[in-house]
């Protein structure tokens, strides 16, 4: 009798936990999504090493934040979207020790153009990150051969990892 009760209890607990897991997996619209830079591109989730990540949410200005930081939502103006990203210098080589990786490009002035017009110029922060809020449209981020095309959509954030240099470490 007691064994049967325990079995039913176990089944109920399992069903409850399963239901809770399914409910938790459905991210509500108001939740932030995090993306971190892995050395060549942005990937979903927080970085394992505790480095900064870009918090993204529909209709809201993206935020570059450390894991666990309290984030305040600031609505994007109507008809605008955002482009967020990192400017980095690729690092390769290493005669005595591994030199592969990347360096952030801080305090870098980054022109954002539409056609031949520079729409705005943003400056990267001390970790190489930048954010620009722009009217929906197509833009070129950066200049010269390393510039990247990006499409900005209303209420959305486009992420971009911009290689701005290369370092050969020996």
């Amino acid at each position, binding site marked *: 009798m007691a064994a049967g009760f325990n079995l039913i209890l176990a089944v109920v607990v399992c069903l409850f936990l399963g239901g809770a897991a399914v409910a938790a997996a459905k991210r509500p619209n108001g939740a932030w999504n995090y993306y971190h830079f892995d050395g060549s591109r942005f990937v979903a989730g927080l970085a394992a090493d505790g480095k900064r990540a870009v918090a993204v949410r529909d209709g809201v200005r993206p935020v570059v934040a450390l894991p666990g930081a309290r984030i305040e939502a600031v609505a994007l103006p109507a008809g605008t979207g955002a482009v967020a990203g990192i400017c980095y*210098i690729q690092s*390769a*080589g*290493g*005669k*005595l*020790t*591994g*030199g*592969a990786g990347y360096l952030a490009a801080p*305090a870098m*002035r980054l022109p954002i153009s539409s056609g031949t017009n520079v729409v705005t110029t943003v400056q990267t922060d001390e970790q190489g990150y930048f954010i620009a809020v722009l009217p929906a449209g197509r833009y070129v981020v950066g*200049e*010269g*051969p*390393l510039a*990247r095309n990006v499409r900005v959509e209303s209420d959305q954030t486009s992420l971009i990892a911009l*290689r701005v*240099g*290369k*370092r*050969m*470490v*020996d």
Partner: protein
Amino acid sequence: MTMAFTRLAVAFACVLGLSLPGAAGPLDDYYLAAFNEQGGSALEKAILSTTAETAGAIQCGTPLKHELSRDWSLLEPATRKTLAKQLAAPALTGEATLLSSGGHFLIHYATSGSDVPTPAAGYTVPSWVQAVADTFESVYATYMTADGYHPPPGTPYHIYLRSLAALKIYGQTTSTSSSPSPGFTNAYGSYIEIDKDFTSPIFHPQVYTPLQSLQITAAHEYHHAIQYGYNFFFDIWYAEATSTWYEDEVYDNVNQLYAYLDAALLNTNLSIDIAPSITTGGGYGRWLFNRHLAEAHGGQSIVRSFWERLATTAPAGQGDIPMIPIIDTLLQASGSSLSTDFLGYAGKLYTGAWSTHQPEIPLIPAAAMTGTFTSYPVAGTSTPSPSVILPHYSFAFFRMVPSATSPATLTITLTADTGISAVAFSKTGNSINSFTAGVGSSQITIPGFGATTEVVLLLANTTGSDNLFAGFSSDGSQVTRTPSGGGGGGGGGCFIATAAYGSYLHPQVRVLREFRDHYLLTNAPGRAFVEFYYRFSPPLADFIARHETLRWAARLILTPVVMAVAHPAAMAAALMMAAGLYIPLRRRHRTMVQTV
């Protein structure tokens, strides 16, 4: 009245128009002159220049860079473009500069703080900085005058002396900004940082004098500067292979580059274009391929031609441009091909038939043997397995040593995918003869095997295709690919372990490989596991190989596995001891819970 007013307005407009450039100019001129970047013709320079820089002139650069940063938005676009590299460049405390005798280099060094040079005995700081300047001028003369390279953007080129020993760095070259010119659309400027004096023990000053370390670093890094000037999107492995090769072309007596061959020749089963790594031999250890090409194609110009072709090649997107197709195209234009030259290079590693730098041939280590056989026949059941899986442009050697059971004539029967090339080398004393299969044949016959010292079989993937199989036997049987696609004991496989330990010849990897061959591939469940593992592990192994932390973690995880395989009894005893400790603790815990 109206006429007079109009004339006055025109005159005012003219004065205003003429004065505006003058108002914009002084700040630009100030910074351009301060950073020695004054443009214009030689005549303009002669007229405008009031204080020509002389050797030994001292400037304090750090405050100037701060001012430049502050005034950036006030400068003309062209000035900003020219001076962008100054903002990116390192700041030295109490910075002083020395212009090299030829005017091609500006050497930046610190006069206080941790970056101040403390040169070896026999040098003062000024004489060491002068030696740096003279060395770079010498390197410049070799590259530009003797070898015909195109100089990198920016004259003078900026060299910074920094304390890099703590970072375990000889030198580094970093791109600055786009600097296109006719024929060099994707040219970038750059600057070089080298260690301040090369006296740290990490540079082995007892083996290589600080001057020698300076020389090879200057030759190495300045070729990177040239590479940025040809095309920013260069392929990194070949950049390191070329820069390293040039160390010996410019300074033949130093010979430090031979140290990078150990890892390369231990890992010949890895593709020639793998990422630079001193663990795998990628990049740096591939310099010897350039020596082969120079010997086979009339000198260094063949290598320069690759870089010249790269200069006119556009990248697909923002990624780097693969060098292998460029090398193949130009070798074919010279009547060869990358396939032919790669096989020739691999063969030289065994025969030692180098035609240049001959006194240094003993410095080239012997290539690792994937398997050695002393009992015959060699067949699919032999240990190690006489087969291998090879990625693109890679190779493996197998050694066969005559013994009591060896045949008088060794007939090697090949079973290989298209794209595998095979050459057998028969060595007797110091004499080496090579043998290949006849046209349409899959057999290589080596007469008089018993009288030889050894026969070495070279199997090379001379194509851009990955995972080509090659097997062989000495009894005419077919050695086929295992169900897993692995090549057996001697071949590839154990991808994660290879990534973790850095070489498939590492003793720990060998233990796992032997376990696979003897215990897993001999039964159906084991083969199923191996097949599953080989299907899913290569991408994971590739990821692990590129992250030192993951390699360390993988080694940590694999250690008990290797221990269990190598010492099963000891591992079982250890597990029993752990269980013996755990069970009483568990019982005690239950007792306590029941009591509560």
